[in-house]
């Protein structure tokens, strides 16, 4: 009995040792892959950072007002953000490759799906970034045009435009990621429809006086002002 127990134990220990002996090289390979991945990711990050500085990516981001958004959110510059993102995606990719080498059942399929998901993630990030830039740019353009045309409530106009663009961009991003497509479609439809209806009601009823003043200003006062000399700036 005693010998049997000892035999089983020694066999188990032997199997564990054999399993460990099989596993150890894989673990070492995984660690090496993770280390090499870190080096490559770091190099990619450095090269990308230099490239983005060369093409003045921060200036592009500044022009469109994205830098201001990042600063307000206490985030680093657009160049730094993108470089870091690429670093983490690259390194994570190598780590997952390493994990695949370990041969853990069930993980391999998930890892393959992750790699298939990456291009969509990149496209979604791209759409989100430029969508936010576009929202910032066009809302500011609307604000300036409204202020210089003396249109009432220019900030409301600007905010409405910004909201519409962001909602639109988010719906595209979610569709690209394949996350809750139906839900997003319905939510977008409802939100967009509600926004338009709200604006129509607000302008037609809530802003009746505002609309009246606006129309008077545009058509009635314009006639009166025709009799006044306008200053020529040049």
């Amino acid at each position, binding site marked *: 009995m005693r010998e049997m127990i000892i035999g089983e134990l020694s066999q188990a220990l032997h199997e564990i040792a054999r399993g460990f002996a099989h596993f150890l090289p894989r673990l070492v390979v995984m660690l090496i892959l993770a280390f090499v991945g870190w080096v490559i990711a770091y190099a990619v990050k450095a090269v990308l950072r230099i490239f983005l500085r060369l093409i003045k990516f921060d*200036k592009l981001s*500044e*022009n*469109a*007002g994205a830098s*201001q958004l990042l600063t307000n959110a206490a985030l680093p510059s657009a160049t730094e953000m993108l470089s870091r993102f690429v670093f983490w995606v690259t390194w994570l990719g190598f780590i997952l490759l390493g994990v695949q080498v370990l041969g853990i059942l069930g993980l391999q399929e998930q890892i393959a799906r992750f790699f298939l998901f990456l291009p969509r993630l990149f496209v979604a990030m791209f759409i989100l970034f430029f969508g936010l830039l576009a929202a910032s*740019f066009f809302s*500011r*353009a609307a*604000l*300036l*045009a*409204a*202020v*210089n*045309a*003396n249109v009432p409530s*220019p*900030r409301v106009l600007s905010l409405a435009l910004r909201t519409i663009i962001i909602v639109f961009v988010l719906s595209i991003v979610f569709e690209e990621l394949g996350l809750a497509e139906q839900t997003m479609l319905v939510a977008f439809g409802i939100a967009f429809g509600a926004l338009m209806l709200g604006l129509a009601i607000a302008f037609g009823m809530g802003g009746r006086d505002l609309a009246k003043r606006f129309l008077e200003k545009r058509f009635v006062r314009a006639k009166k*002002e025709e*009799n*006044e*000399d*306008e*200053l*020529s*700036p*040049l």
Partner: protein
Amino acid sequence: MAEESFLTDDFLRQLINVGEVDILVGLPTHNNAKTIGSIVHTIQSGILRGFPRERAVIINADGGSRDGTPELVTGVSIDDARPASNPYALRTLHSISTKYASSPASGVALRTILAATELLRAKACVVMSPESVSIEPEWLSKLLGPIYRDGFDLVTPTYRRHKFEGLLITNLLYPMTRALYGLRIREAYSPEFGFSGRFGSQFLGQNAWNDGTDGAGVNLRFTLAAITGRYRICQSFLGEKDHVERHAADLVPALRQTVGVLFSALEPDFPVWSAVAGSQPAPTTGADQEVLLGPLRVNRKRLREMFSNGVAELESVFQSILSPSTLAELQRIARLGEEEFHYPAELWVRSVYEFAASYQKSVISRDHIIQALAPLFRGRVFTFLMENRNASADEVENNIEALCLEFERLKPYLLQLWKPRE
């Protein structure tokens, strides 16, 4: 000749038929049928009176007129002008018209005129506005004479204007150009100017014509190029400038064509203007500037309201452009009533310099920076109107001079804000 390629074959053929000329008059047009006939007639009279023995040509660069403007230019007979001026003029006066595009673009129009100047080897050239209804035949001699006879390279005009006309020039363009470039040119941006063939060729060869814009404000770039190239520049008093009907909506395009061009020139011209201290008067024929004092109805209340609303509504934009102290001061004066409201010269100059530095750094879209200046300009105009409500011509001039000196005094502030990009 590289510039030949963008000229049409027909235009080139007409130029070849003309041969070499001494005098060239450039006339950029777009739907100016109402005024162009009398203007061409006046130009012909001016040439016959002032340059009867010189070979001359009128070049009309048309931006796709649909009202028959080019036909009117080429159809005006020199014989109509001859009896009234000099019946014994020996030379033939050619009139050539070319359509450079289907829509107006001042840069392309000037480029066409400059290319014709080079091809015809003209010694002295003048560009005339197709809207100058107050043009006199003497304007030709006044703009061409200093070039043809005295060897100047650029002649800019000065005018007799109402004290409240051209406020963008008197409150920003003239003082800032003078402070930065060191030369007192009253009308650096003018639709009429004369230039030598030598300078025209140099500008034609060096200027970046394919920058994606339609060349709005090219007149100002032309003047700045003459200053930075150390060409001989003078001013010539023309007389009263006709009142061109403008509306408040014209302000933003006017800012783009003048302030936008000036701000964008500051970056390449930094080595020049950063080394300049003070300013020198430009040689001037006739009066430096004459001021009219007649009554003018202006909606001052609206100007102040648009300033105050602009400062309140554009706070987020101004935070990107202005320093916190300047913005705080603007917000303080924006809350003042009409009687107490005052936008002091120092604050105005600081605001403009901070806008220029922000433009250089592109803190936001450059066009948005220019648009954001419009409400502040309205506030400054309100103060200028109030300060000069009952002022005499001399007092108005003194106030403009004081503003110019303020721009010069605060120039080190702009240099401090300016950080050349590495």
